[in-house]
């Protein structure tokens, strides 16, 4: 089996990067063999890339449910086990229960949203990765996984479409 190589093409702008994405598709490079790296969020629609999905909303919903369950534990189980008479209120009164449930639900949701970013993005991850610091200076990089025999064609096309550099992507410690 032929080992694939990784090319990194660096573009100065969205327009040539979008054209390059289309060209790669035209010459048979699959979408999942291309990754875009940028210093600002560039939407998939701008580059003509497939829609990205995220588990963050699902994880948030899960966290909200978990938080609410914890809130129910505090609001229902706790006063049942440690009953306190507060000014003639019921042992499990309605309005205070709403407050506890709300705060715990929101806490669960926001923590799981935060952790969701970590899980989905596999943060923290300190192993060497394909990257060049110019990306955070506003350049757009296309990471292209291709066969060695496709390299020269891709390099030529990327250069023709305005890539400032096309080189073998080297994993480096960030």
């Amino acid at each position, binding site marked *: 089996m032929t080992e694939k190589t990784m090319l990194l093409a660096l573009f*100065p*702008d*969205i*327009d040539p990067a979008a054209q390059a994405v289309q060209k790669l598709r035209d010459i048979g490079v699959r979408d999942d063999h291309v*990754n875009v*790296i*940028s*210093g*600002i*969020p*560039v*939407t*998939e629609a*701008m580059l003509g*890339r497939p829609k*990205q999905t*995220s588990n*963050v*909303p699902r994880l948030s919903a899960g966290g909200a449910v978990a938080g609410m369950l914890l809130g129910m534990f505090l*609001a229902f189980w*706790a*006063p049942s*086990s*440690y009953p*306190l008479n*507060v000014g003639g*209120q019921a042992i499990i*009164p309605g309005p*205070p229960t709403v*407050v*506890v449930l*709300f*705060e*715990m639900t*929101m*806490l669960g*949701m*926001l*923590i799981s*949203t*935060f952790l*969701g*970013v*970590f899980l*989905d*993005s*596999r*943060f*923290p*991850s*300190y*192993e060497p*990765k394909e*990257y060049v*610091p110019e*990306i*955070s*200076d*506003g350049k757009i990089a296309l990471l292209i996984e291709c066969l060695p025999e496709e390299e020269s064609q891709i390099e030529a096309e990327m250069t023709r479409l305005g890539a400032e550099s096309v080189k073998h992507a080297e994993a480096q410690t*960030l």
Partner: protein
Amino acid sequence: MAVLANAAPHAQPHSNSAEHDHEAHLREEHLMLDPRPRGEMNAMVMDSMHATGWKFWVIASILAVIVVICLGYYWGLMISEGMVVAGINRPIYWGIFLVNTVFWIGISHAGTFVSALLRVFKAEFRRPFTRAAELMTTFGLVQAGLSIFMHMGRVWLAFWLFPYPNERGLWPNFHSPLSWDFLAINTYLMSSTMYLFLPLIPDLAMARDRSTGWRKVLYRILALGFRGTESEWTHLRFAMNLFAFAILPVMFSVHTIVSWDFAAAMRPGWNSTIFGPYFVVGALQSGLSAVAMVLIVIRGNMKNMKYFIRPEHLDAIGKLMLIISMAWAYFFFNDYMVQWYGGDSWTKVLLKFHEEGPLGWMWMSMLILNVALPWLILWNKNWRRNPVILFTVGFLINIAMWFERYIIIPTSLSINRFPFTYQLYKPGVEVQLSIGTLALFILLYMLASRIIPLVPVWEVQEGQMAHSLRKFGKEHVVTVSDLE
């Protein structure tokens, strides 16, 4: 569309010099129309963190000494001697510690308001200073938390607040607004810290790419390995949008619950149904004023910040301050009116004590500085844009808001249904501890400004991409594209 900030991306052939002047004026006025290459903006922000003069360290050292003496020594004294060194005594058991708690929670509201609410409504002027405001939230909540611990007295027993099975058979009373406080403030502190960190990740990665030595190690750890891949941005975008919407009700809940510490008590002056929104608006009043003050200090003292923070931003915050001041006046009058009209004899005595008692000057100052002053000054565009004037107004509003909390808490507690216990509150170590928390807040902020990129460069660049000048007839007007 250009990713790189183009020096003149919207340039049209100029028919005459007046048009050119107008266009040049618009670019000078609006950060979003005055783009610079991203690399240059990165360098400016990095430079602002590194350029530290001797004055900075002198001020930081003085603040550190104040923190050690006022916070370290006097808190230690209170712990060893007991609450007797504080001024709280019958009938005033809630004093300056709780005034400070409410005050700092109020300050913390500005970060969320500026960042989340303005993000939800896509107010573009927010972009360069969201982080500076968010940082205030986190550090403000730290001071609020410290003030609560001071108020506890026996602070080493703070863990009793946590619900866990124990041999004492104790359990927090979740019917109590004080327990809700514990939940709400912790929720808000954690949420706002996470909300500060998420949009910071790309800027930490930027700082990582441009640092050496210990800074490189620090930024490398904090950037978590972020590169800016499509999936990383997607997850961040989802999370930030979700946070922006979800943290707003949390923000409103926190100060509402703080208000219930008072409003849930059947006490004249406190038992008010409008205390929740009144406290929230009061928090925004002091918080926004504090944001204005911080921005003016940053702009005046940090390198390159005049590019990012411009008179247009002071103008926008000044307008918000004016609107919130009007809202505060409305809620104050509503609360006052209903109490005055109710006819309860103890309430009448309390209102008279507020207005004409020994601290009547404080009540009157509160109204003048919170209402009259901003209304007289902030309607004027030139005055709003003047850093000295805006800073002074912000400072005086914060004094007034501190007075407001002082009137609500110890002043209102000075008199009650037992006239033989009437007594004015005379603070003890509260004064030193208050100075200590203020010094700690400023010190933390100063130190953070050397480590954390205060300007979210990627957000500024995104905003600059979205803005352009469009010509209608002979007029150039600013247009904004929705890039999300």
